[in-house]
């Protein structure tokens, strides 16, 4: 789960990372009030889960509170990469002397938190990584001992020649690591970490992603989720215990298991169709999940046909068949449905489907070829 910049900033501030003052606003008037409180020139920043905010016009300098209000008025409600801006962050315009990068991720290979720092921070950090990887310094932290003082200071000196600044950066890295582990983050980055003309080291922008598996035991973090920043169908799917990602095609897919779901989408494409979505109904079967899955998929007007691909293991195929039966009784499905199922309780499932005039296919390739042909006929 991605946090907004203002949420990440608050989290790091609470942990003790020095950040500029500032606050978040939902209306132009609030933005004006914050700008007045800060005084001087401020930056008004769109809060959306998308990169390239500045290029899209979502980050503006304002010399006066009135200008801050005007910018906020334009930015709030703006669409950036399909997402509507609901909030802006208002912060003082920092006088920036240098920009560095400090980030932490979960490293699959070392199976440790990987700290990455670079004196060449800012918006071009990805280019730095690609073209001058020697300017990025990495350390896989052993979680048994944490980030040790000498390690942090050593990396601090990779960023700054000045000892006081190196120490300040080391303290920020240590605090960031603490916040990363304490909040079960999968990514935490400060970019840029700036020095101002008086030599102060400050975190100017922050991004944090929380591991989804952490949210069950951390209602405080789960409460930071901003559902207005997500596609409505994806929110509905999550509430129904389904994993759903909308795509651009017209073949709706309902599958059990993520790997098989991806392979099903790939096979649709292989036979010349275009998948409309990724949808995993998960391991344990429950007819209600199938009803919800059909409801979500049929709400997409682009969908011309729906394919079920169920390999029963823990998932009972008769539960899936019952779900289809219940859904069809509850609401109309105007597009054709092709069902492939095999495995646990297959005979019962076939009987249930026959009872409502449907046939079940046993083979995945047959089912995908059939649905692609149906979509072609309909076109």
């Amino acid at each position, binding site marked *: 789960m991605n946090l907004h910049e203002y949420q990440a900033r608050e989290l790091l501030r609470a942990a003790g990372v020095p950040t500029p003052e500032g606050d978040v606003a939902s209306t132009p008037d609030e933005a004006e009030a914050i700008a007045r409180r800060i005084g001087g020139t401020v930056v008004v920043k769109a809060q959306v889960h998308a990169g390239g905010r500045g290029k899209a016009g979502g980050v503006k300098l304002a010399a006066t509170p009135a200008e801050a209000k005007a910018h906020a008025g334009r930015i709030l409600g703006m669409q950036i990469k399909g997402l509507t801006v609901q909030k802006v962050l208002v912060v003082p315009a920092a006088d920036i002397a240098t920009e560095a990068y400090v980030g932490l991720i979960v490293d*699959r290979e070392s199976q440790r938190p990987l700290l990455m720092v670079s004196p060449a921070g800012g918006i071009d950090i*990805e280019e730095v990584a690609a073209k001058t990887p020697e300017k990025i310094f990495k350390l896989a932290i*052993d979680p048994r001992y944490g980030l040790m003082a000498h390690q942090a200071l050593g990396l601090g000196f990779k960023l700054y020649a000045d000892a006081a600044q190196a120490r300040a950066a080391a303290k920020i890295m240590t605090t960031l690591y603490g916040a990363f582990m304490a909040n079960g983050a999968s990514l935490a*980055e400060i970019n840029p970490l700036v020095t101002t003309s008086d030599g102060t080291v400050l975190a100017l922008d922050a991004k944090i992603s929380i591991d989804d598996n*952490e949210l069950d035991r951390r209602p405080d973090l789960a409460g930071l989720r901003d559902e207005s920043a997500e596609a409505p169908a994806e929110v509905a799917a999550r509430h129904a215990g389904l994993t759903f990602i909308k795509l651009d095609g017209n073949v709706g897919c309902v599958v059990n298991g993520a*790997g098989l779901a991806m392979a099903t989408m*790939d096979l649709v494409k*292989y036979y010349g169709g275009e998948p409309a979505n990724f949808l995993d109904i998960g391991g344990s079967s429950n007819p209600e999940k199938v009803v919800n899955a059909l409801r979500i998929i049929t709400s997409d007007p682009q969908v011309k046909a729906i394919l079920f691909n169920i390999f029963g293991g823990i998932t009972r195929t008769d539960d899936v068949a019952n779900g289809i039966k219940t859904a069809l009784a509850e609401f109309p499905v105007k597009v054709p449905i092709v069902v492939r199922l095999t495995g646990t309780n297959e005979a019962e499932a076939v009987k249930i489907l026959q009872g409502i005039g449907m046939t079940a296919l046993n083979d*995945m390739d047959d089912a995908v070829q059939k649905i692609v042909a149906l979509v072609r006929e309909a076109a």
Partner: protein
Amino acid sequence: MSIFVNAATRLVVQGITGRDGSFHTRQMLSYGTRVVAGVTPGKGGQQFEGSVPVFNTLADAVEATGADTSIIYVPPAVAASAIAEAADAGLKFIVCITEGIPVVDMMKVMPFVREQGARLLGPNCPGLISPGQAKVGIIPGNICAPGRVGLVSRSGTLTYEVVNHLTRNGIGQTTCVGIGGDPIIGTNFIDVLTAFQADPDTDVIVMMGEIGGTDEQKAAAFVKAHVTKPVVGFIAGQTAPPGRRMGHAGAIISGSSGTAAEKMAAFRDNGIAVMERPVDVVRLVREKLGK
């Protein structure tokens, strides 16, 4: 022969009285797996299905029954602790089925598992099965058959799909291993490839990968350098969207984006025969087996 588990495996089930644990223990027992003990704190002294003794702690279970392998079906919040308990009790092979373990918990427990010299399979995996000998996990036994193909996969149901194709076409397996889809897992492709390479009864290896990370690329390079047996590979997720990134530098700085195309190219470049569709496994494995 087989890898990791066989007819002699003495299995203890952590979370044996839970909803998932009890269901799958019955399945494993009916397959013929030697389930010698179960653990549920507070239920020590009970008998599961009238035949499997239940203990309060894993240490008690191991001492009383000589269990050598554990399987974990406990909820995610306590799963890392169950893994540590198994490693601490001296078990050398631990299978964790649990899905949804916080990644921070896994980063903390892995160094301990390695220090104890244990091998963890999973978490968030379907376990493994050596057809005709032992089923340790949730892979349906009826779709597998004994034979000479070793299969390793990051997926669950996609594995069933492929195994089913093999079995229906008369191609059996030595062992089918699900390594799990989480970012931090105990056993990776290379570990399983190493075991299959050393297993005299495995003639062909099937490797099922997916998008994300670089494990498949590393495994492909390993195959070229160290595996003399033919390998057939699949990558799921060619049509998966790259995901709405929030401009995270982290994933990019740390390396590859792990697309399907990149991984399939790595397979081909290293001599692995690539399946375009799951059903292609039959044709490619037959070619490699020379039948």
